[in-house]
């Protein structure tokens, strides 16, 4: 069925959140079947920096929902939005 790369935009709870540690926690929370293919960072405004992981999931039932839910439960995450997606 192929694989889909989904780029997510994760906003931290505040500008003080340690992004390296947050990145590790996100990696540790990944559900089975998904993998992270690189992290980007985007300077937003007033010291806020977004983390932009690209997650590869199967082009299959559930979409990127399981990943979004798992990331939503990670300490230090304010919100998750989908930036873009495409089949590999």
């Amino acid at each position, binding site marked *: 069925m192929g694989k889909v790369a989904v780029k997510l935009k994760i906003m931290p709870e505040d500008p003080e959140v340690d992004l390296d540690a947050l990145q590790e926690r996100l990696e540790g929370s990944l559900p089975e079947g998904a993998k992270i293919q690189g992290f980007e960072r985007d300077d937003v405004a007033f010291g806020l920096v977004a983390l932009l992981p690209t997650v590869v999931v199967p082009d299959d039932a559930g979409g990127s929902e399981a990943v979004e839910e798992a990331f939503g439960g990670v300490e230090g995450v304010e919100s998750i*939005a989908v930036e873009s997606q495409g089949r590999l």
Partner: protein
Amino acid sequence: MSDKPHQNLAVIGHVDHGKSTMVGRLLFETGSVPEHVIEQYREEAEEKGKGGFEFAYVMDNLAEERERGVTIDIAHQEFDTDEFYFTIVDCPGHRDFVKNMITGASQADNAVLVVAADDGVQPQTQEHVFLARTLGIDELIVAVNKMDLVDYEESRYDQTVEEVKELLQQVRFDTDNASFIPTSAFEGDNVSETSENTSWYDGETLLEALNSLPEPQPPTDAPLRLPIQDVYTISGIGTVPVGRIETGTMSPGDDVSFQPSDVGGEVKTVEMHHEEVPQAGPGDNVGFNVRGIGKDDIRRGDVCGPADDAPSVAETFQAQVVVMQHPSVITAGYTPVFHAHTAQVACTIESIDKKIDPSSGDVAEEDPDFIQSGDAAVVTVRPQKPLSIEPSSEIPELGSFAVRDMGQTIAAGKVLSVDER
């Protein structure tokens, strides 16, 4: 490369109809395959002492490279033609990715629909065409693909074109705005050069059709619409809402209003990439602060717009929807969650006004009792909490939504009209 106008191009259609091969072929024909992949091919061909099929080799290796994450942005691929610089997205097949297509940042300007001549229109073809319409795509290039598998027969091409035209009528897509091209992505027919295999066809090649697309106009002239993603309190600054501008522009000094929270004030500073900017426009991710607005006054899902042309808040709205998957039937009173821009609000389908006939695009039934998977319909929707949303004809960026329930995307739709509070 980047001094040409930019086009976001979606490649849509059934997953088995050759979409990835078409993307690969476009990259190959425009010389956009990374040089080292071509080089690698030459080396291996030389070592093994045989030529082989270069395109097939490139396809295999491109996919592998992307999966390993060698390229920087693996969700997109890029190529340029004489006129445009294209960012191309191969749309996922499964319905559960539909929400991302609607709420994601990179909305497509135009689309190539790939339909295999040996398989015709499939349910996924229908869904993708409807989505293209929902996402505000007006021009569609239809590649009737895999012509090699039907011996390049004109009758098979004509048959597929007719099937697609019926489908376009169903979603009220003007067939005059669609162009049809017989292709084989695998063999390279009518992609960059007119094929001798289809001597009965005298229209454009795919690349010519891409070149003749109208230049996308960024929605700068539309009123400001900035859906709020998050609201922060930053020490020394105060309340900072953050989000991506969908339409219009924002500058310090602007008098803005947040809806449905119904508060407003004057914009003090706008920052982008940690720098203060005099103006921000469509697609820009910004943080800003507004005189007199506290953290608890506004929230995610609010839309920021000019005070004198404030975002609409719907008491009810009428929408065209396509039901993609539902275990039983949808009747009046059904209350799933609607995902529109950054808002997620439970909404009741108050009435099902019309069911659309798939073969003609006409109204098949007024006030039907129910709709089910595969149906297109016009419905009236009542948000259970205040929701800011706009008619798709006025601001398409704020006029589409995905409907979710039971962990699935049930339907997608676009707003026809808003009955404001």
